C-alpha cells in the first residue's frame, strides 16, 4: 500500500496490522522520551485546505514522535489557496521531496487527484463529504481497546450521515473488520443506496430508540446548524429530541456499550454534557488514540508495508 485514501484501501490484515502497530506506538507515549527515530530524515507535509487544528496537530504530533521533519502547508488563507492549482501545489511538494503528504481538502477526491501527481505517499485527512480513513482507524482502535474486539459488534452511527466523511470511512472499515453497522438519522440525512454503496449488510434506521438496546457502540456524528436552512430538519430542538443522545436514552444501551464522537461536539445538539462526560464516553481517548494510529500509518507507509 502506497497511499491511504479510503477505508476501502484496507483489507482486514492490513487494518489489523495498523491497529497492532498503533498499540505498540501507544507505549511510546508513556515513556519519558516520547520519540522514536524511525522516520528520521523523512519529510511529512501537512497540506490543509480547511481549518482543522485538531487533525493537523494529531498528524504533526505523530510525525514528530517518529522523528520526521514536518512542514505545515496551511493552504487556507495563504497564497496557495488563492489561485495556485492543486496540481501546481503537488509539483511544489514533489520538488521539496515530500515523502508523505497529509491532505485535508473541502473537495471529495482531492487526495486521489493529488496521488496521481506526487511520488510520495498521500494520506487522506478528510476530503469533503467523502472519507477520513485515519478517523475510522482510531475509532476501530478505540472500540477494540474498550470492548476487546471488533468482529461481531453492533455499531450505531447516528446523525448527519449524508455529509459525514467519518461515517463513510467507518462503514467501510467496520464492514471489513466484521462489525455490523446501523446508520441512524432523519431520512433527509441518509444518503441514497447507502445500504449497498459501501459495505453489504449495512442497515438503516430512522428510529434511534429502537436501535440503542442492541448497540455495543454508539457513534454520534456532528450535525451542523446550517443544515436547518436547507430543510434537512426543522429545528435544532426537534433534531435533538429525535436523534440527540441524552441521559435517558443512554440508559437504554447495554451496560457495556460505549459512546463515541469524532469531535468537535455540539453539546446540547447531538449529545448532552451528561453523556459526553459519562464513563461510557470515549471522546478523550479517541484524541489520544488518534496520535498512535497516525504514527502507525506513517510508520507503515513510509517504513514500507510488506
Amino acid at each position, binding site marked *: 500500500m502506497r497511499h491511504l485514501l479510503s477505508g476501502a484501501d484496507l483489507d482486514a490484515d492490513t487494518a489489523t496490522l495498523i491497529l497492532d502497530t498503533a498499540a505498540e506506538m501507544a507505549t511510546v507515549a508513556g515513556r519519558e522520551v516520547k520519540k522514536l527515530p524511525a522516520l528520521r530524515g523523512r519529510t511529512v507535509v501537512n497540506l490543509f485546505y480547511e481549518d482543522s487544528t485538531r487533525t493537523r496537530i494529531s498528524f504533526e504530533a505523530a510525525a514528530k514522535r517518529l522523528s520526521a521533519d514536518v512542514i505545515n502547508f496551511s493552504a487556507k488563507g495563504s497564497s496557495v489557496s488563492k489561485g495556485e492549482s492543486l496540481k501546481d501545489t503537488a509539483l511544489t511538494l514533489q520538488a521539496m521531496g515530500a515523502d508523505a503528504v497529509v491532505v485535508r481538502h473541502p473537495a471529495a*477526491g482531492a487526495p486521489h487527484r493529488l496521488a496521481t501527481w506526487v511520488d510520495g505517499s498521500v494520506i487522506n485527512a478528510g476530503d469533503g463529504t467523502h472519507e477520513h480513513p485515519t478517523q475510522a482507524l482510531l475509532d476501530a482502535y478505540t472500540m477494540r481497546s474498550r470492548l476487546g474486539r471488533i468482529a461481531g459488534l453492533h455499531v450505531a452511527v447516528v446523525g448527519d450521515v449524508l455529509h459525514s466523511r467519518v461515517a463513510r470511512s467507518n462503514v467501510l472499515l467496520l464492514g471489513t473488520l466484521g462489525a455490523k453497522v446501523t446508520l441512524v438519522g432523519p431520512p433527509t440525512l441518509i444518503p441514497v443506496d447507502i445500504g449497498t454503496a459501501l459495505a453489504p449488510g449495512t442497515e438503516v434506521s430512522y428510529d434511534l430508540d429502537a436501535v440503542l438496546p442492541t448497540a455495543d457502540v454508539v457513534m454520534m456524528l456532528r450535525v451542523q446548524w446550517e443544515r436547518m436552512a436547507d430543510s434537512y430538519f426543522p429545528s435544532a430542538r426537534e433534531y435533538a429530541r429525535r436523534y440527540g443522545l441524552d441521559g435517558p436514552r443512554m440508559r437504554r444501551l447495554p451496560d457495556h456499550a460505549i459512546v463515541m464522537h469524532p469531535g468537535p461536539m455540539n453539546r446540547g445538539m447531538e449529545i448532552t454534557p451528561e453523556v459526553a462526560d459519562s464513563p461510557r464516553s470515549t471522546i478523550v481517548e479517541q484524541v489520544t488514540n488518534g496520535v498512535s494510529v497516525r504514527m502507525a500509518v506513517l510508520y507503515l507507509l513510509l517504513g514500507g508495508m510488506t
Partner: protein
Amino acid sequence: MTESYLIRGARVVGGEPADLLLRDGVVAEVGRGLTAAGARVVDADGLVALPGLVDLHTHLREPGREDAETVETGSRAAALGGYTAVCAMANTSPVADTAGVVEQVWRLGREAGLVDVQPIGAVTVGLAGEQLAELGAMATSAARVRIFSDDGNCVADPRLMRRALEYVKAFDGIIAQHAEEPRLTVGAQMHEGEVATRLGLTGWPAVAEEAIIARDVLLAGHVDSRLHVCHVSTAGSVEVLRHAKARGIRVTAEVTPHHLFLTDERAESYDPVFKVNPPLRTAADVAALRQALVDGIIDVVATDHAPHALEDKECEWAYARPGMLGLETALSVLLEVVGERWDLIAERMSRAPARIAGLTEHGRDPAPGVPANLTLVDPAARRTVDPGELASRSRNTPYAGMTLPGRVVATFLRGEPTVLDGKAVK
C-alpha cells in the same frame, strides 16, 4: 468551376456499392461504372456513404473562450467526425442573444468553410432566465436562427418557458431545453445514486431532469408549440417522452454518445474528464436510452461537444467544468453502441437533426440532384482514441485509450472535400 469528384464503389447508407459523381455542389449521378472526364476519383471500396452528419448541440466557445475552441478548430473537428453541419450553442461570451452575435458566429463559420455553422440563439438575455432575448431579430438576421436555447442553464421559470414556446411560433422556431430543475441540483456533481454516495459527491437526481421534461411537454402541448429536449439522460425521461409522443405533443429529443456508452462508475477515478451535465447515469439508464433511440422515442444523437481548457479539467472534481468532447468520436461510439445499422445512424445523426433545425440542404441521402453533403466511413477500421491527435483545441475526451470501430475517410460539403484520406483538407 469547381473540381468534380467520382466516388467509386461506396455503399450508400449501407446498400449495394455504387459510384457517385459530385459536380457543382450536388450529387450529379449515382450508378455503376460511371465515368467522368477530369473528375478526381475517390476509391470508396468497402466504404459506406452517409448523408453528412448534423449536430444539433455543439459548443464552439467562440467568442469568449478561444483558448478552449474556436469556430475554426471546432469546425475541423466536426468535419473529421463526418459532420457537414453543426448547431452552435449560445452560451458564449458574450452570449449569443442578439442578432449581432449570432451573425458573427455564422460569419466565422462561413470563413472557416469546413461545415455549415448554424447558430442557436439564447432564449433569455444573458442566459439569465429572466427576460426574453430578441428572438425575432435573431430569426430574421443573416444567421436565420430557428433553434433557441439557454443550454448550460434551464429555462426554469414556467411562465417564461410558456412565453418562449409561444413566441417562436411566429417564425417556426423551436425551443431546445436543457432540462434541469435548478433547485434540485444545487451543488450537484454527479448522478445521485450508489456511486455518488460512495464517492461523497453531491447527487444530481434523475427527477430534476424528468420533472422539467414533464412540465415542458405539457406546456408545449398546451400552446401547441415545438419543443426539443437536449441531452436526455434518464430512463424516466424516456417514459415521459413516450407518453408525450403518444399524445401527439410536438416534442423531439436528443441523446449524447456519452450517455449511450458510459456510466456513473467512471467517476470513481475522480478524473473530471468524466464530469458532464447532465451527469453520466446508471447502466439501466444507458440501456433505456439505447432502446429509446432504436424505437424513435429519442429522435437524434447530438454530441454536446464541450471543449474545456486543461486547467478547467486538471483539478479537483468539484472545481472542474462539466463537459466532454464529442464531434470526432460520435460516429464511432454509435457504431459501437448500435452496430452497423446504417439507416438508423443516418436517421438519428443526419436526417432527423437536419429536419429539426430546418437545414434543408443537409440530412438528405446521396441521390441525383441532392446537395453533395456526405461522408464516407470505413466500418472495418478500428482506432484507438488519442487525445493528442484530435483537431479540437481541447483534450477532454472521455474515450482516451479506448479502441472504437469506424473511421471517417472523407467528408464533402457541397461537393468540396473537407476531409480526404482521413485528414482535414484545410
